[in-house]
């Protein structure tokens, strides 16, 4: 469902992601963990098509993220940390907008169900700027669940949620994965995501420190009794070598134009 091959992203002179590769299948839930500045959000933003990768291949559901961006966007949802919302729209109007943009059939009915699930029904006519941090997060999740994406990218989704909200979100993630969705969940709350993730991707300084199933990570660090301990064992290494920089093949503007606009 997701294939990332030698992804590199350069910001000015800083290589935020230095040639990472991994792949995930439908139904996988991957916990993307790592210290601050490891490149987790950049990886997610590249996958979501919000920023262009400097080099590397990103395939979602058999489609190239940069080339088939419109088709990819229909299949992929991204919830950033502290999602920006339209201050002049109500909760219900946000869902109406997404329903229309993604051409969701019966979106009113589905949005009512999602609002009820995330305890937002009473806020349906409230303006987004009057919502608390956690409620904004819940609304962003509802908006992204509305079009039933095949791939879900959740960047620190638990921040700001109340305990029932966290439980509801984790249950919904499990439920969607069971129905075939592929989920990448970035979080620092390792104890919270421990029992949800089938895979773990540990990043540090733009590189993959570990990628595999949760069981593999525990086998690699048998002394660890939890994901948190395994994570500390995985990242507790001497200073990494300089990021490995992959050779890149430049694309001419004509190739890019043909690939994106004229296809």
């Amino acid at each position, binding site marked *: 469902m997701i294939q990332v091959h030698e992804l*590199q992203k*350069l*910001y*000015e*002179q*800083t*290589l*935020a992601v*230095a040639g990472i590769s991994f792949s995930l299948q439908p139904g996988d839930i991957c916990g993307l963990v790592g210290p601050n500045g490891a490149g987790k959000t950049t990886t997610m933003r590249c996958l*979501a*098509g*919000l920023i*262009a990768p*400097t*080099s590397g291949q990103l395939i979602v559901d058999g489609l190239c993220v940069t080339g088939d961006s*419109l*088709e990819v*966007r*229909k299949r992929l949802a*991204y919830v*950033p940390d502290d*999602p*920006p*919302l*339209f*201050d*002049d*729209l*109500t909760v219900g*109007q*946000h869902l*109406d*907008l*997404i*329903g*229309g*943009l*993604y*051409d969701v059939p019966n979106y009113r009915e589905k949005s009512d169900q999602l609002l009820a699930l995330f305890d937002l029904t009473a806020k349906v006519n409230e*303006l987004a*700027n009057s919502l608390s941090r956690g409620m904004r997060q819940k609304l962003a999740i509802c*908006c992204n669940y509305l079009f039933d994406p095949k791939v879900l990218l959740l960047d620190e989704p638990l921040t700001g949620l109340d305990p029932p909200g966290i439980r509801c979100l984790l249950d919904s993630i499990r439920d969607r994965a069971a129905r075939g969705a592929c989920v990448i969940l970035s979080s620092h709350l390792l104890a919270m995501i421990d029992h949800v993730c089938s895979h773990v991707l540990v990043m540090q*300084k*733009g590189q993959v420190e570990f990628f595999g199933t949760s069981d593999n990570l525990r086998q690699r660090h048998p002394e660890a009794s939890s994901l948190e301990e395994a994570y500390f064992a995985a990242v507790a290494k001497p*200073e990494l070598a*300089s*990021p490995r*920089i992959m*050779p*890149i093949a*430049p*694309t001419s*503007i004509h190739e*890019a*134009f043909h690939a*994106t*606009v004229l296809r």
Partner: protein
Amino acid sequence: MNHWQGVARSLLAMKLHSLQSRVRRSVLRLLSPKRLLATLAAALFMLLYVSNGVLVILTRKPVAPADLMLWLSGSMAIYALFHFVRASWQDPDTRLGMSAAESLWIARAPVSNSLLVIYRIASIVPSTMIKTALVATVLFCDVASPLRLVIALLMAMIILEAIRMIADRFACALSHSGRIVVRTAATTLAVLILIQLAARTIAAAAGSVHPLAILIAVSAAAGDTIASPAIQWLALPWWPMAHLALAPSWDGLAAVYLLLSVLMLVVAVVAVFMVDFWASWHQNWCEGARLGAIQRGLLTDGSTNRRNARPRKSLFALPKFSGVGPLISRQWVGVVRYRATILVSLAVPAALSLAPLVTSVDAGLLHVAAWLAVCTLVLAPPALRIDFRRDIDRILLLKSLPITPLVMTIGQIALPSLITIMFQVITVAIACFISPTAPTTIILVIGGLSGFAFFSFAIENTLFLTFPHRPKQEGLAMMVRAKLVFLGKGLLLAMLGAAFIAWVTLCAKIELPVIVLIAGCIIASWSSAAVAVAMTARCWRRFNDYQLGSA
């Protein structure tokens, strides 16, 4: 209904809901007791503006159609050039001016880039219509058909907005060296136009030092400059609209101009789309080239640099002064970062202030001081936004600091005020070099104007803390606010001028020594500054979350 129709309908519905919500919020704000004074002032302004428009229409002689045609197209070209200069100096902005929410929910949705460009251009139509209505009111009596004028102006302004988007997107996608080339070219062109304007002003002023005469000379020079062939070549895209606005009737020629105008509009939309595409590609290409250079060892990767020991960047060390020192040190970082912009912003008022010495041999330091006072109150605060206005998103952090309101106010406005004083001193020094002046006059000017600098920034911040707004906030309310503030400042300057003349007359009448005259002026100036700073501190103490939310 196909997918694209559904998308367009959703976007339209979203915009209408958003507009409805904004109108409702504006009405609530207007009716709020706290803003009653501002509402009444705005209503009064609108009344005056419309009455003035009607009066002008009834009494003014129509401008020659040929001149108006040149001014319409030329002024658009000048604005377009301004957008390029601004874009080349500013930090890269968001794509097509989209908000963070639009970037996440609309640009990331399955919406094609062409539809996204149309959406962005459609988004600016309501505000452009308001601007068109205001300009059309003024030009109503100069044209045969107000309808043609409105249509032409609306299209011209939408094209101008499209060019603003092109300039922003183009500049943000440039490499560092490309940006310098564009910056140099655009700024050189702007400076050449300013030189032309200055030369024409000097010729038109014909030795006069009276501020009104100089203002009339500047207006005449601006008209001549805008109508000059060089500007008119730049204004080529707006020619059809200028001709359409001035067409005598709906004949075949007017239809051709209308058709050409629509064609230019389509070209502008397509150009935004192409530049947006090029910018995305070019940014990616530049990144790839930089990565390639790092790979070949020609550049160093920043992440490697971070691991190397580098000297820690510290704030400029100043004594604490109850907290004023660290606040000024923090502001200094912003000054260093935007030094070029600040320098350019202050160079123009300096040139304007020195203009009387160039236009007339009779002019002296007091004429320069009068212009400096105008610049200090009207031009310096918008140029030096390094006070509370810059910290709208950090207000709660500032509120949490263990600093008294008075100290916070002094810390926030001290640096812009000091920079303004430095600008005043340099201008006065140049003026004294051109036209030697008595030391007592210099003391009077510097002593009085320096207090006035603090006064100006304190007043600006008092207004801001009472009616806060975001840095790039736009709309009708902001336009009315800007006009009201301008009028208020004008009134204030007139009152200060009258008070100064009254004081000088009184001193002359009762034959007080010059030292008393000077001391009186300086004490009055600094006392006003102290009162204004106290007012700002009071506003800061009363500033709350509610005001922040309404900004």
